[in-house]
């Protein structure tokens, strides 16, 4: 995976990253320790972090020449953060960072191919077995912002992918596709994956 150049801003996305911080950093700047070498230019994180049962959406990362970055945090909602245990503790290492451009371009390529190949298919078995669909699932949480953008145009076929990526069916029990889409979008919005 190649990183962004030093002379142009890039957006990057973080799935899970480690936070080394005080217990209470809400509304405050904190220090993030990362384990990946791509964080070199001005960028924006669209992921979220978990911390001790409360949480913040990462709105902006201020970079510096060193490997220590400053996070500007905006508290959104204490409800949306997954339990710290789900992330293996708030000191868990393992940053998953890819340039947003690369993720979005690849997702669009895959989704367009899948759309074209399954344009008239009603079979969920057929469209979830399509190689492009499986690759989208394999992209994991980082693909969610782009999948959520695309969801309203063709919602129901993406529900199995969403469940596979997230690991639970957020729309479980939804009687209609419209209700299921709302449930997914609200879930995504609360976690910073959807706008």
């Amino acid at each position, binding site marked *: 995976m190649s990183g962004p150049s030093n002379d142009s801003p890039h957006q990057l996305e973080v799935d899970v990253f480690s936070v080394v911080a005080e217990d209470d950093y809400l509304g405050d700047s904190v220090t993030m320790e990362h384990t990946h070498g791509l964080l070199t230019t001005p960028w924006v994180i669209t992921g979220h972090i978990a911390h001790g049962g409360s949480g913040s959406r990462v709105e902006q990362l201020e970079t510096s020449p060193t490997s220590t970055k400053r996070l500007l945090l905006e508290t959104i909602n204490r409800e949306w953060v997954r339990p710290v245990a789900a992330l293996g503790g708030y000191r868990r290492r393992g940053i998953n960072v890819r340039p947003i451009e690369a993720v979005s371009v690849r997702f669009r390529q895959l989704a367009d191919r899948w759309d074209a190949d399954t344009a*008239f*298919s009603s079979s969920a*078995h057929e469209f979830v077995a399509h190689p492009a669909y499986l690759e989208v699932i394999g992209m994991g949480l980082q693909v969610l912002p782009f999948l959520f953008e695309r969801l309203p145009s063709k919602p*129901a076929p993406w529900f199995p992918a969403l469940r596979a990526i997230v690991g639970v069916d957020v729309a479980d*029990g939804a*009687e*209609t*596709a419209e209700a*299921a889409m709302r*449930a997914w979008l609200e879930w995504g919005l609360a976690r910073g994956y959807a706008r």
Partner: protein
Amino acid sequence: MSGSPSLERAFPSLRRGEYRITSPADGRYNCIAFAAGDTTRYWWPLDPLVGGYHWPLPPGSGRACTLSNFEAAFATLGYEGCESAELELPYEKVAIYVGANGVPTHASRQLASGAWISKLGSNVDITHRTPENVGGRAYGDVAIVMRRPR
């Protein structure tokens, strides 16, 4: 709405048959739901189901993607097997299609006019003259026709 070259490429019989697009593309329901009269969700035998999907048969063997399960699904709506797709005014008919491997692919429903209606995946709804208009490469052949009193 007028015809569509992409539809006619996917369904070559539509070139010969009369058809009309009757709705915009909509990814909230599919052909099985549409044939069943439901335009709010996807009908498909996933096991387990996900939110926004529906299948009237119970989990387990009822969720296998087989013609007999599709027949049983429409039977829950009062349909039973019949001999032909010809119009019989007292009855409403559905046709279930299977691909070359015998796996269900599509369903269409007959109107009182004798025309048939199909939802094409997550794409548009159309009316077409015969069940065979949407058969062929995409959906295979009609495997069974069912009817219920109107």
